[in-house]
């Protein structure tokens, strides 16, 4: 997978939830009434701010495979998609969701995004044991299933 040659911007989407106040009479053992929970997470699959991310692109393929691998492992990496509903189901109120974009290459003109884009791909992808993920898809070096 060589994602750096793809001529488009890819963005990870950050949902962020902030339930400001829990006005509940439930007997709480772990969170005080009025307490907060904050979650910051990435959400797969990779998305683009425009139509530059084609369906047949290597990045899209990699993203889909990674999501599939984590789903097979029982810990899907699109869990953030459901946080809001799950938080509300658990009883949290005033759940707030803020989305941020993470550039995946160093081309943004904006200085901060340029730094993020320079740093995000290698840190996200290259050093976190991708091999383990690949195994959960049934990939190995002999049978390169669809990787």
């Amino acid at each position, binding site marked *: 997978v060589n994602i750096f040659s793809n001529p488009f911007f890819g963005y990870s989407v*950050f949902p*962020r939830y*902030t339930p*400001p106040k*829990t006005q509940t009479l*439930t*007997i*709480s*053992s*772990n*969170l*005080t009434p*009025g*307490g*907060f*929970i*904050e*979650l*910051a*997470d*990435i*959400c797969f699959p990779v998305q683009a701010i425009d139509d530059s991310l084609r369906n047949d692109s290597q990045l899209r393929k990699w993203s889909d495979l990674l999501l599939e691998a*984590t789903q097979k*492992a*029982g*810990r*899907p*990496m*699109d*869990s*953030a998609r*459901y*946080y809001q509903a*799950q*938080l509300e*189901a*658990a*009883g*949290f109120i005033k759940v707030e969701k*803020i989305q*941020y974009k*993470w550039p995946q290459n160093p081309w943004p003109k904006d200085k*901060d995004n340029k*730094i*993020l884009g320079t*740093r*995000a791909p290698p*840190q*996200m992808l290259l*050093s*976190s*044991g991708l*091999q*383990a*993920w690949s195994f959960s898809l049934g990939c190995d070096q002999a049978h390169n299933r669809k990787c």
Partner: protein
Amino acid sequence: VDQVSSSFFHEYLCSQDCRVFASSAVILMRFSTSFQNHEKKKCSTVTWSGIQKALEQALSDVLILLDCCSSGIGDAGEGNGVTELMSACAFDAIANGVGHYSFTKALTIELRLLSKKRSFPVVELYTHIYCRAQYHMAQGIDNERYPAPIHLLLTQDDNFPRSIQLFILEPDSKTIANPIPEPSSYEPHAADPTNYKHRLSPEPLETSQKRAYLDWRPDSQPEADYSITPYSADPQSNTDQTSSAADKDSSADSLPLGLVRTTNAPRLLFAVRLEDNIRAEDLSPEYFVDWLRMIPTIAKEVKIEAGFECNSTLLLVSIPLWLNSYLSHNPAVISLGPVKSSNLLALSYKHEKLVIKRKEPKPLPEVFDDETLGSDGSKIYNYIYENGRRYHSYKAGRYMFPNDEAEAERLDLQHMLFRKTFGDKLYLSPVNKTKHTEIHRVLDVGTGSGIWAIEFADENPQAQVLGIDLSPIQPTWVPPNLTFEVDDLEAPWVFQDKFDFIYSRMMTGSFRDWPQFFANSFK
């Protein structure tokens, strides 16, 4: 004294008359042993062994209180009912002298205190006396000694195993109207046969309660009457006893189970040396089954305090103090003395961020099947290496990312990216804006290298921060208001205190059941 007591025993224990107070009897004896040693004169002595044997064979339950050494006579195999003995020290020790620390003094005080209860078992009295007798620090007085009082079960009733239960005799008009001349408070007036007979005569069997009493008087409390009875025979058995009767079949014998629930009671710590070298992970309840069977207690009361390697394996075990006399002797068991808390040094590890579990102590059989015995930290550092990457060992395989140096660097870089994304903020929730939303207890879920928790703790000195992760890869040099613990947040949460801010970052791919995590957070 010998003559008086012998005649008393002869008259009351061996004659038919003793059926009048058939259920039980208390024999209170006091021998001034401390004075004998100074003058080398020949003192009159009591031949105790014969008396004790007679008492063991008495028809009633007998509680013997000795303010001297016990003579160490065992069960003669005969007798009816229970014979229990409490003495100031063991037979091979030197009894304490007369003073604030004497056995009788402790007995007096504790009986007075316990008299507020409706009834209490002998072992409870013993536990209290033990605490009081051991309470004093040596003050350098001559002949000052603090031997541990002992409690022995001389004979046990096989049909109905029990401990003698003491209760207060309700003040009776006849009793009060019948004052007994009592020259000295500790005179064994039980040895005054006429006195006893006189006291007993108005009572027997008229009330259809077979109970005997002994008007034993602590010096400052002239009207307090104490009597004893086996608690089965007590028709007014209190709720404590009825509830304990329900538990009875779950216990190995019928010890007063009310005491089992007594908290803060001193425990006896002893070392058990095992034959083999047993690694912590190999320890299993089977090693202790035989041994446990010999202790008439529920396994819950036996606590493993620590384990060491010492050519073989040495375990520190504690049991309630009152079980001492029921414990069988074994050369592998080394008594260490009484303790009143769990291992204090182990608690201090908490502050060194090496805590593996902060769960409540578990009953014995469970102690060995969990990772708990690795609380010295060895097990959690037993990392797993695969494909050149290092992975966590506590609940191995749960988290799919490595935990090595490269991963810690990735997490720190990731932290930088998040800070940059959020405008250099550590969090976005509207906390710490006003006094009202100031946060004091923070949970960092999946703290990783701990960098977020460290920076948060630095910025918020008022908050106590707890960072949880499966991997103990956090630095040890951290702000004082920050603690790291190795734990699994997919297991049930057992935190002592509530949090007012739970922070979870980059945990996607970590939890199997997010709704459960939110439920744990919310409840």
